[in-house]
């Protein structure tokens, strides 16, 4: 095993255990505490991926969550496989299996790199320009090929074997980021009774302090101080420390989403541990201490493996104990890269030259580098690089051009300064302001109860970072209503690296045709961005969408400011005027699993079942979803398909008796002195004269005059109504009633109660229904004279209290037996047994639909679609014309609602009785009319009617009631179907059967 890149310093590395893992099938050894990135670098591996578009070899650019290149798939099995993880964040453990992505057949020899040779033909907007023609080729040819070539990792082939949980939490102060600013904020905020949550996306807390070998705080080396601070925080009962926890999104009113990765770093997680927890934290006050991200420099061929951010290299050396290269060229626009160079030199690397973009370089770090014998070239650039699978050399020239010097290297470090991580601040709708000095946006005015501290506020000197963190922590606790137990001070000794910075491209004017990457992950070059401006795109929002810069999974963490710089220079407009793209959650990609939580499988969408459901299941019923309910659809017997079963159920009900579970009907009990008046106002019908013991079919409108719901209503007493609604409409109806009652008519003495689940409803329909029920009922005279159609009686059935409705949705003599839900199944079975001599037949919703359609009874939501008035539906008779007012009444006389040519409900009989129309089919007068053919209506319901031995249909047709007998056309893909307009009541128009 070769880990010649491991630093031997006699401290950190020696005490760490060896860990074995594989990458692309090859075994490697790393050390405990390594990320996959640091472990691979220790083994001299820099090539980890192929780029998105050109399939160029790529290596590690960073050491953190901003990594654009090192995307890997992790997991030994498909059920535990996660694509697109960042190697810079994946912690290694014994047995870890990782692989590179977007390459074929292998990372070293990838066929996709052929794109590289065609790169001249793949400019920005390439897809829009090229694949426009012929249109039909997009779906069959272009899209599949592009999808195979481009893209990131592969989705796992098996369901996720892991478990995810969700947690709600409240705290006084939430601190995001546990670097120097966040730790100081936590120490101060928790020095009171405030409850504090401190979270950090990394495995270890400390942020930049973990990579700092030169600074000291309170007389301790930075890492040592960090350990002490964390020890202190751990002792405080009001503090919760959460590492491996990313604050990924800010939602209104200080609601912050945290994703905690619980087991990803473990070889053998306990079975009771979830893989991740989604924390939904409501914090009184928030301290944002998210730090800053170093910016790459945009120079020719800046994307080769072995070219990385200077501070990332410093982290690999100082924190993980690995040297990313031994011959180093540094290219910088600021002092921090000098600090990195010195740390690498101390670890044994040779610094070939520091190339400084600035006209002159001076100050502590520059002087120190010079004193250590490092060659410094100011006012210079790296104008090109060589090396395919790893960088081999850099070409260096004056910033304006001229002769280039070639310097051999295996590592190029770059730094254009730091970009404050303002993502969460911006998501909280805080206003950003542009800092000319930092060449970056910094937080301005806050909207929510939060404050930014440290580097994410644009402060980079350690002393001011800690000071602002401490102040922010105290402020947050105070604003949350807590007073501190005292104030402590921090003695910081650190040399500042200043705040110099650069954005845009460093290329000379002669290099216009060369490629310098702005966005590594989406393969966007400065040339592409300039092309977009030449083609007329000026706003960064448009440039972004045209070139896709900043639209990859890293959301432009490294690229956005450089893209702005390129555009700003190209069109000669100040950066703030070019605009800024919107920061959106999540900050880093977050698993679907954590958002789904427990909502998967049976728990994804809870199912409601009636008390009679198990009986229907035992009978072999097929079910359908209606609203949130499962309803029995039909009851097939051996060898029957749906068609045969429904025909048999219909026949049995029309000829003898059928039984149907109607329990899902919505039910509302309306009670009070003013109940009748309330009903008058809510429904189109008149209720005042409805006597107790009688039923009425009620129609409810929205205020705009269109049908909202319908149902049979029973008056149980002068001050009590038993209202039924459609299955799917119950909640909506109750909510609308509550709205009017609470907000328009609070003076009415009425109470509304949902009773849907309190009653089981058993519909018994057919000529023998009375005979089946009579022996089971006590205290109710069922005879036609004593209990006519549309009446309700209270009594007992099988010893159970019942509200017995005489009502029919089939056109037959019918009853609906309401019993307390707990008795539903027992009463059902008793009725079923009593019906045996009559061949009682259970039927489902499909038969119910056919039987009611034969009678022309509408179903709200099938015959109506929110634009149908009572008159359109043939329900004009149900509107109480004499009533002064009801919801929707005024709208019924609006001009559009009284037009003669409105769509009206009619029956349709096909010329060929065997043809069953398709529901939703459009109806036309003249099918030979050139396209577009004017459409005059559509089929709302269509079935095979066993009763009539032919197909039947209901339809909404313009001026339909004046078209009786007319022949209309229904054009379908395989020919035009002819049908005749008839009355919507197709069976027993006089209603003799239901009055029997």
């Amino acid at each position: 095993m070769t880990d010649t890149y491991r630093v031997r310093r006699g401290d950190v590395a020696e005490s760490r255990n060896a860990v074995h893992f594989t990458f692309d099938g090859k075994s490697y050894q790393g050390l405990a505490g390594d990320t996959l990135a640091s472990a691979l670098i220790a083994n001299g591996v820099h090539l980890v991926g192929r780029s998105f578009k050109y399939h160029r070899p790529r290596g590690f650019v960073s050491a953190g969550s901003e990594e654009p290149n090192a995307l890997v798939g992790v997991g030994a099995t498909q059920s535990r496989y996660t694509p697109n993880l960042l190697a810079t964040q994946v912690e290694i453990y014994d047995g870890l299996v990782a692989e590179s992505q977007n390459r074929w057949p292998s990372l070293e020899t990838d066929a996709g790199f052929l794109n590289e040779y065609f790169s001249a033909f793949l400019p920005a907007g390439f897809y829009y320009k090229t694949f426009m023609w012929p249109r039909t080729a997009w779906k069959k040819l272009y899209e599949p090929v592009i999808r195979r070539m481009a893209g990131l990792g592969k989705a796992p082939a098996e369901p996720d074997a892991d478990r995810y949980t969700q947690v709600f939490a409240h705290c006084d102060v939430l601190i995001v980021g546990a670097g120097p600013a966040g730790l100081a904020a936590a120490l101060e905020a928790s020095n009171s009774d405030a409850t504090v949550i401190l979270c950090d996306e990394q495995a270890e807390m400390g942020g930049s302090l973990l990579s700092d070998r030169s600074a000291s705080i309170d007389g301790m080396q930075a890492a040592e101080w960090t350990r002490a601070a964390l020890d202190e925080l751990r002792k405080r009962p009001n503090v919760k420390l959460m590492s491996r926890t990313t604050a990924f999104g800010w939602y209104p009113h200080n609601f912050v989403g945290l994703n905690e990765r619980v087991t990803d770093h473990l070889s053998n997680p306990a079975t009771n541990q979830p893989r991740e927890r989604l924390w939904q934290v409501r914090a009184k006050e928030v301290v944002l201490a998210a730090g800053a991200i170093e910016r790459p420099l945009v120079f020719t061929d800046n994307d080769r493996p072995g070219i990385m951010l200077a501070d990332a290299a410093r982290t690999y050396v100082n924190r993980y104990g690995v040297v990313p290269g031994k011959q180093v060229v540094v290219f910088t626009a600021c002092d921090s890269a000098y600090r990195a160079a010195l740390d690498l030199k101390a670890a044994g690397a040779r610094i070939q030259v520091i190339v400084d973009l600035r006209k002159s370089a001076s100050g502590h770090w520059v002087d120190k580098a010079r004193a250590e014998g490092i060659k410094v070239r100011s006012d210079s650039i790296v104008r090109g690089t060589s090396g395919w699978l790893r960088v081999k050399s850099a070409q260096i020239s004056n910033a304006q051009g001229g002769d280039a010097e070639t310097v051999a290297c295996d590592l190029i470090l770059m730094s254009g300064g730091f970009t404050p991580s303002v993502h969460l601040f911006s998501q909280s709708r805080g206003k950003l302001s542009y800092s000319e000095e930092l060449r970056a946006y910094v937080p301005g005015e806050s909207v929510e109860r939060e404050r930014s501290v440290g580097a994410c506020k644009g402060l980079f000197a350690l002393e001011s970072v800690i000071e602002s963190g401490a102040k922010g922590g105290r402020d947050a606790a105070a604003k949350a209503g807590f007073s501190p137990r005292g104030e402590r001070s921090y003695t910081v000794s650190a040399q500042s690296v200043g705040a110099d910075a650069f954005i845009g491209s460093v290329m000379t004017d002669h290099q216009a045709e060369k490629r310098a990457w702005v966005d590594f992950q989406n393969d966007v070059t400065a040339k592409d961005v300039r092309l977009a401006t030449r083609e007329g795109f000026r706003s960064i929002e448009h440039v972004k969408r045209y070139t896709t810069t900043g639209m990859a999974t890293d959301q432009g963490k490294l690229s956005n400011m450089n893209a702005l710089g390129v555009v700003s220079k190209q069109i000669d407009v100040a950066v703030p005027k070019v605009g800024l793209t919107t920061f959106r959650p999540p900050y880093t990609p977050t698993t679907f699993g954590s958002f789904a939580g427990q909502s998967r499988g049976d728990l994804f969408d809870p199912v409601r079942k009636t008390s009679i459901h198990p009986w229907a299941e035992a009978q072999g019923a097929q079910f359908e979803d209606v609203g949130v309910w499962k309803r029995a659809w039909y009851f097939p017997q051996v060898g029957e398909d749906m068609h045969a079963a429904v025909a048999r159920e219909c026949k049995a009900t029309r000829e003898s008796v059928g039984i149907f579970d109607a329990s899902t009907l919505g039910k509302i009990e309306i009670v009070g002195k003013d109940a009748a008046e309330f009903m008058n106002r809510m429904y189109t019908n008149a209720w005042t004269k409805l006597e107790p013991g009688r039923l009425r079919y009620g129609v409810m409108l929205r205020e705009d005059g269109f049908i909202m719901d319908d149902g049979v209503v029973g008056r149980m007493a002068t001050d009590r109504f038993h209202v039924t609604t459609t299955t799917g409409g119950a909640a909506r109806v109750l909510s609308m009633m509550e709205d009017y009652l609470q907000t328009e008519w609070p003076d009415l003495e009425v109470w509304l109660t949902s009773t849907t689940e309190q009653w089981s409803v058993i519909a018994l329909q057919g000529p023998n229904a009375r005979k089946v029920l009579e022996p089971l009922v006590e205290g109710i005279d069922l005879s036609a004279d004593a209990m006519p159609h549309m009446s309700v009686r209270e009594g007992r059935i099988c010893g159970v209290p019942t509200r017995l409705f005489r009502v029919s949705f089939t056109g037959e003599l019918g009853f609906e037996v309401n019993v307390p839900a707990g008795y539903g199944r027992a009463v059902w079975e008793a009725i079923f047994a009593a019906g045996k001599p009559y061949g009682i037949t259970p039927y489902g919703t499909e038969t119910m639909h056919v039987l009611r359609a034969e009678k022309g009874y509408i179903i709200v939501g099938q015959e109506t679609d929110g634009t149908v008035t009572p008159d359109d539906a043939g329900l004009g008779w149900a509107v109480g014309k004499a009533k002064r007012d009801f919801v929707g009444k005024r709208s019924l006389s609006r001009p559009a609602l009284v037009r003669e040519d409105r769509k009206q409900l009619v029956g349709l009989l096909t010329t060929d009785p065997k043809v069953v129309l398709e529901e939703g089919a459009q109806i036309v007068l003249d099918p030979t009319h050139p396209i577009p053919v004017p459409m005059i209506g559509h089929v709302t319901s269509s079935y095979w009617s066993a009763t009539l031995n032919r197909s039947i249909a209901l339809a909404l047709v313009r001026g339909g009631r004046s078209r009786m007998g007319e022949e209309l056309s229904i054009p379908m893909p395989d020919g035009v179907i002819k049908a005749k307009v008839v009355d919507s009541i197709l069976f027993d128009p006089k209603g003799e059967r239901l009055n029997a």
Partner: protein
Amino acid sequence: MLLINCPYCGPRPEAEFVNGGQAHIARPADPMSLTDDEWAAYLYMRDNTKGLHHERWRHANGCGRFFNASRDTTTDIIKRTYRMGERPEAEHQGAKP
């Protein structure tokens, strides 16, 4: 997710509530006496406010009561919630709080 202070129950997460649109639009006492235009204005015309918006909410998965809230549509900050029948504070619709 908004944190909404139900005047009857106290602060609760938005998931417990349903928005009911613009507040303080009384249903006309005698709709039949209105012209078509007046009725259409009541039915359909609503403010599209940038700034302070007085709106109805219902604590649907809680006490079930309707109440009003004054919310800044640009920031989602809810300045005040109050019971049905009460008037909003002096700020007018659209004002910056």
